[in-house]
């Protein structure tokens, strides 16, 4: 057992950190944009392109597609540092769409998308969820009819968060009515500017914009199909396999902020606060160890199944306890929003208290994660 990173990995981490410190100004602006709830603004794009130009968005990819041909551990380190400095810690293109295109896409798709993904020039919005297809994703119904020269698409999606600034929709659509349902789904890369697509905002409790996306007789070219027809559900699951990591550096940063706050206002001797903060420290540390385990498995090219589900569940639930503890420490001041002189830590935790709820849902709810752990990890029978 060795819980150290190699000297080369540490050197890489330092290089990444130095970069973010050097780009402090753009980073601060990008974070402001991101925290506004609107997603990528101009500075987000600027910093992503700078990261991409170094090959760091997709360090594991082949050089011909803009990568550095490094081991998975470098991607993990990159994500840790990105999450620490920047609130965006990966793009959908680098984490999910890119790897699927690389494995199953046509030559044309690879040429068109991979290098721009690696360079941070484009982004994808996940187009999975529909009103009747949330945790039960295979129930998705948006229709893609093969019309010979093109697919004709009709239907709607919901909670497609990046759709208002991403260039492409990573769309799961129904190409056949089958039993079981998942066998009639295909995956497409759709240009979100295609006529007939309407995007309507939905605002979350965390004041983050997400979207409904409507397809009204949209003609999507045949070349937009990824891989084989009716194999989309497998690709969707595979894409989840590629993006199984969660990092805790953001939690560590926020935790430290609370510890410093407690010291500053002289509450550090309160035994209840000491107990709560210590418990959080332990929980965050255990989540860190879960993350290292998953990163190590991915580095060995193993597929972490229940381990990744456990990590995702623990990180998102630990975040809840972190923001809750912060709010309890603030007492009635915790409810005051950014802008008032009575707001604590600029109202940051008032906002995260709302915005962190999304982590419990996205990429599979905690309850779905538990089902995965029960089935794949413990071998319990299906209900």
């Amino acid at each position, binding site marked *: *057992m*060795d*819980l*150290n*990173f190699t000297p080369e990995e540490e050197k890489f981490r330092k290089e990444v950190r130095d970069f973010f410190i050097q780009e402090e100004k753009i980073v601060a602006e990008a974070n402001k944009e991101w925290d506004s709830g609107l997603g990528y603004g101009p500075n987000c794009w600027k910093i992503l392109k700078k990261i991409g130009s170094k090959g760091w968005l997709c360090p594991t990819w082949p050089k011909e597609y803009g990568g550095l041909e490094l081991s998975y*551990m470098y991607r993990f380190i990159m994500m840790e540092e990105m999450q620490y400095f920047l609130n965006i810690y990966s793009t959908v293109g680098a984490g999910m769409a890119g790897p699927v295109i690389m494995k199953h896409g046509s030559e044309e798709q690879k040429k068109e998308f991979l290098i721009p993904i690696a360079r941070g020039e484009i982004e994808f919005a996940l187009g999975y969820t529909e009103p009747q297809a949330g945790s039960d994703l295979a129930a998705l119904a948006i229709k893609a009819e093969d019309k010979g020269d093109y697919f004709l698409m009709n239907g709607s999606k919901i909670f497609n968060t990046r759709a208002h600034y991403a260039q492409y929709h990573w769309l799961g659509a129904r190409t056949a009515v089958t039993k079981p349902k998942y066998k009639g789904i295909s995956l497409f890369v759709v240009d979100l500017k295609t006529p007939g697509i309407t995007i309507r905002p939905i605002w979350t409790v965390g004041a983050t914009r997400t979207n409904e996306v409507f397809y009204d007789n949209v003609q999507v070219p045949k070349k937009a199909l990824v891989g084989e027809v009716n194999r989309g559900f497998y690709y969707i699951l595979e894409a989840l396999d590629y993006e199984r990591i969660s990092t805790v550096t953001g939690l560590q940063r926020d935790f430290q902020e609370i*510890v410093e706050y*407690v*010291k500053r206002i002289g509450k*550090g*001797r309160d*035994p209840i*606060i*000491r*107990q709560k*903060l*210590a*418990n959080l*420290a*332990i*929980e965050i*540390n*255990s989540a860190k*160890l*879960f993350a*290292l*385990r998953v*990163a*190590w498995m991915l*580095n060995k090219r193993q597929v972490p199944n*229940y381990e990744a589900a*456990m990590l995702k*569940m*623990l990180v998102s639930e630990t975040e809840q306890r972190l923001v809750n503890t912060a709010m309890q420490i603030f007492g009635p001041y915790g409810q005051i929003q950014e802008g008032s002189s009575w707001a604590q830590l600029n109202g940051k935790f008032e906002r995260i208290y709302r915005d962190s709820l999304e982590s419990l849902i996205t990429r599979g709810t905690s*309850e779905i*994660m*538990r*089902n995965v*752990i*029960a*089935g794949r*990890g*413990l*071998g*319990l*029978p*299906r*209900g």
Partner: protein
Amino acid sequence: MDFDLTETQNILLNSAKSFLAKEAKDLFREVEKTDEGYSKEIWQKMAELGWLGVVFPEEYGGIEGSFLDLVLILEEMGKVLFPGPFIPAVISGLAILDHGTGSQKDDLLPKLIEGKLLLSPAHIKPNPAIAEMKLEDEVGVEDGNFLLSGTRLFVPFGHVTDMFIYGADMEKGTTLFLVDAKNSGVTSVALDSIGADKPCEVKLEGVKVQESDILGTIEKGDEIVSKMEERGALAESAFMLGMLEQVLKLSVEYAKEREQFERKIGSFQAIQHHCTNMATDVDQVKFLTYEAAWKLSQNLPAKKEISMAKAWASDASRRVSLLGVKIHGGTGVSEEHDMQLYFRRAKACEVAFGDGDFHREIVAQELGL
């Protein structure tokens, strides 16, 4: 980054698994009602495998392994609730290794490692507010000898121990004395307890010891004690990890077998989610314990990590064993099923070497609070 065990560790682990499966599968139940509370014969066999000497130098008969190696063995012991004063023996031995005189080490360590000498720390004083009678606690000096009187509690297997590391309160701090249990004036009584792991009340009445019996420096014993407690906390966490892994295993197996409403109960989400919560707790205990042990093995400071492990293990032991009982239903509370053994022992382990609150306070200090 590497979570794999070394080849040597795997060999050690496999030998531990096969020894315990053969010799100790139902041992806890067999010895629970006996006066000794452990089996001398199996203790001897275990010593022959070198387990008591894992972390000791070769010159004393040890095998110079790491604390992580020890943790792996303790984890396996926990799975079968291996009875006996293993943890107290090892932490006492390490205190002697670190602070003993040459002759103390030469005299005691080989015997300890061979399984011929049982050693136990005796430094927990009764809470005077709880004690019914007035407690005499004195260190007298007579002709250059010391006369010790006092009561110490929760001395593990004190009733069969050969020697105590007795903590005596003196003017400027604790002095640790190596006290022969056969000394007249020493009485040990095993207290019946929830975990049946023989915590004892040890009473000294005018026991005469010499300066050569002091472990470490006079009135400087507190540091040695806290080091013993620290190692004990980590060792206990490893033992608890094994216990909890076994509780999870028993519960999942039961959920796959047991049918109600014409279905395996393991197909119900309520049961599934209980099991996943248990599995998550178990993995948390596992990696926190491994991280602390790995740090110790690398000679890195590990105070915070040890307390993290023991704090989480202490609370997880209660949560996991309670869920285990719930999943087993009526079976879980029946005497003849093993589940109740783990449930009871979990409480004993929770309070040994500091409970969750105690160790969270240490973590808070380490956070600079």
